[in-house]
């Protein structure tokens, strides 16, 4: 029996008819994608508010009674964890992965729709458990998003009791949710591509999402293992990670466990996580750039190779996060080398994006602005990564604001830029409406310039030596007074950027109702998701017949063609065919 995901006749797919089956317990990948997306944006806003609170404290110390050192640490931790896992991972893979995979490869749905639905509800549960920790005695954990033992579960760290338990439980639940979703994504990409959609004809978005999902499937177990073992250390009193120690004048029952073991496990997950977030962003930005520059992506094959190479290399660089934990010099050398090697495929990608723009017919649409903004922020964050990858440079800079600036540029702001580009780019498809261009551009300039106003000075105060995760600077001789002035200005910029996100939310929700009706394929894109019969696509995506693919996704501005784009499902004319053979 043909699987329904790619069957030509869709009578086997019963349309959901009640409100509940259509919008709540839905098995349709598009609805699940939107559920994932809305939930992720909601927790993301929580994390944004937390960052504003932290900035208020840092910019104007001693002005806010409700932020004390403990709550500051709790804000840092929850902000970091939510942003990385519950917002970015969930939105990029659960949201865009779900929406785009079946549509871009020409399938009717994911191959395991039921499991896909379970994945969302499990994710929602993990979010609820996470947010519940704000309301338990002691509040959420303040151990930092890295949750290093022993301090994470010892008295003295905020939320060392309930907070950390809920955090670990929530992570475990999230990993189960991710695994269910991830199995779907990889299987769908491998098994449910439509006629003629060879792997190398897939848009780069799919390559990025696919590779990131494989990374996630192989990396999240490391986080699960560390979460389980730390949970046992906390709840039952085992000593996997907990060394023999004296806490608050009392010697505890723990025997000689190894905190560094936790760090290895955590970063064996943690570094690939950076690419779990980055690779889908790389893919989507490539497609946005090509579409809005009306040019084929420069070096498609090289782009695919780079994605795969980065994916592989990302598993052998993890200890660059642990230089300050101490290690054999040979290991330091090894990890510094691999870290610098991974810069090669990454740089290739950046060159190719720039060369795609080179002499393109660039349309400065809102998605394009965000995509170009990404090239800036990513290059910027990537360059400081080259500094930090070297042991001798990392040692003094580690745990300063230089690191905070680096990772916000490379894995905070950059994926967010792509997410905005992607939301604006696919908004007409998802909702059938156009957003307001003026508001979109305003949103872009506030966000892009604001980002630089926040993070450029952070590099500087990092070099001055302002430490990371500090509630207040206190009296330090080596940090000049003026650092505080910079801190105040960073805070004001951060508040402006935070508020300017309201423009985005307003635009998105206002346009849902009042936006202009979107034309069919308004950007003139070639990939399949824009070639559906209905906009937004209906249940089953393709009406009675699956699309037939004849070409890759980047036939823009082909000489001699009627229009400046040829959709993937457009047959090859005989003349074109011979021309192709000749080249």
């Amino acid at each position, binding site marked *: 029996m043909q699987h329904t995901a790619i069957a030509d006749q869709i009578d086997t797919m019963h349309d959901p008819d009640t409100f509940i089956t259509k919008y709540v317990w839905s098995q349709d990948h598009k609805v699940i994608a939107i559920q994932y997306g809305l939930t992720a944006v909601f927790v993301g806003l929580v994390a944004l508010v937390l960052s504003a609170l932290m900035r208020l404290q840092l910019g104007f110390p001693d002005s806010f009674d409700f932020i004390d050192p403990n709550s500051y640490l709790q804000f840092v931790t929850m902000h970091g964890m939510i942003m990385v896992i519950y917002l970015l991972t969930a939105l990029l893979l659960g949201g865009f992965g779900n929406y785009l995979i079946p549509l871009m490869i020409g399938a009717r749905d994911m191959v395991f729709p039921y499991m896909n639905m379970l994945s969302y509800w499990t994710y929602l549960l993990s979010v609820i458990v996470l947010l519940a920790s704000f309301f338990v005695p002691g509040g959420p954990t303040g151990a930092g998003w890295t949750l290093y033992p022993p301090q994470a579960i010892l008295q003295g760290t905020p939320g060392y009791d309930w907070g950390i338990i809920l955090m670990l439980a929530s992570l475990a639940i999230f990993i189960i949710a991710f695994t269910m979703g991830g199995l779907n994504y990889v299987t769908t990409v*491998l*098994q449910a591509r439509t006629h*003629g959609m060879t792997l*190398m004809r897939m848009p780069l978005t799919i390559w990025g999402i696919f590779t990131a999902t494989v990374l996630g*499937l192989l990396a999240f*177990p490391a986080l699960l293992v560390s979460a389980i073992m730390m949970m046992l250390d906390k709840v039952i009193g085992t000593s996997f990670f907990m060394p023999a120690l004296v806490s608050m004048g009392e010697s505890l029952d723990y025997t000689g466990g190894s905190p560094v073991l936790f760090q290895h496990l955590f970063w064996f997950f943690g570094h690939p996580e950076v690419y779990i977030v980055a690779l889908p962003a790389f893919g989507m930005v490539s497609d946005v750039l090509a579409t809005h520059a009306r040019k084929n992506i420069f070096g498609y094959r090289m782009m695919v190779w780079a994605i795969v190479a980065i994916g592989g290399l990302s598993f052998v660089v993890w200890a660059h996060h642990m230089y300050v934990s101490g290690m054999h010099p040979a290991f330091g050398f090894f990890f510094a080398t691999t870290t610098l090697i991974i810069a090669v495929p990454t740089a290739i990608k950046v060159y190719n994006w720039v060369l795609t723009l080179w002499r393109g017919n660039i349309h400065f649409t809102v998605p394009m602005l965000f995509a170009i903004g990404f090239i800036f922020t990513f290059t910027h964050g990537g360059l400081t990564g080259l500094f930090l990858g070297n042991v001798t440079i990392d040692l003094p800079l580690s745990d300063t604001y230089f690191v905070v600036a680096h990772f916000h540029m490379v894995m905070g702001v950059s994926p967010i830029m792509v997410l905005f580009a992607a939301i604006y780019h696919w908004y007409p498809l998802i909702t059938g409406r156009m957003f307001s261009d003026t508001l979109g551009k305003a949103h872009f300039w506030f966000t892009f310039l604001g980002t630089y106003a926040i993070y450029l000075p952070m590099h500087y105060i990092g070099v001055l030596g302002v430490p990371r995760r500090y509630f207040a600077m206190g009296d330090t001789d080596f940090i000049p007074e003026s650092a505080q002035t910079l801190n105040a200005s960073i805070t004001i910029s951060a508040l402006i950027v935070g508020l300017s996100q309201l423009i985005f939310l307003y635009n998105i929700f206002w346009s849902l109702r009042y936006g202009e009706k979107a034309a069919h394929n308004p950007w003139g894109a070639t990939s399949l998701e824009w070639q559906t019969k209905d906009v937004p696509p209906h249940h089953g995506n393709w009406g009675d017949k699956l699309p037939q693919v*004849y070409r890759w996704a*980047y036939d823009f501005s082909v000489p001699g063609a009627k229009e400046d784009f040829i959709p993937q499902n457009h047959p090859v004319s005989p003349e074109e065919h011979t021309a*192709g053979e000749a080249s």
Partner: protein
Amino acid sequence: MIRPLQTLRQKPWLTQASEQLNLIPEVDSVAAARIALRFILAVVGVLFFLFVITYLARSQYPDFQSLAGAPWQPFTDTSRLWLNTSFLILASAAMQAGIWSAQQERQNRTIGFVSAAVFFTVLFLFAQLQLWQQLSQLGFYISTNPANSYFYLLTAVHGLHLVGGLIVLGYLASKTWAVDSVTAIAKPLQLCATYWHFLLGVWMVLFALLASSPQTINALAAMCGF
């Protein structure tokens, strides 16, 4: 079948009318499930691999006392572990026999063998629980020593994976009951069997690890650089 290198060498920008590129996808639910199973095995494999690696790393700290070696350690005598293992081997074998009879369209035998597989799996799980009891009666509690902690943890995680397998098998059985045809079950059953064999393999590795003397563990740890 995907050949990675060949795939990565294709030049998709050349427009080809070539028929071979415009293949009609031949996908049924079992083929999809087979791919998913491969990924599941990879994920589970990584999970246990990481547990084992941390076991070896942790074994190099002075408070670690492995569960075998000295005469008073519980797994120096492996007979009890072998008993449990034999249940799991029987479960795997019954599963395989179930597939063969399903392929020969012998309904009753298939049902018999699959039930036997379920029976032995459950027996294994109970035997493991009993082993837990025995060890704690001997004073080997979960938090008295990291080796003990690992014993309880690894057996628990392994057992949970078997329970997961049983649930999927139950779901499969309920579906085939509705269809009432043995040949239909042969292919999905094959996937279940693969999972069972895999978990048997995992258990053998865990067994070997738990029953290793300190010397063996130290040698393994040294090989990994700990």
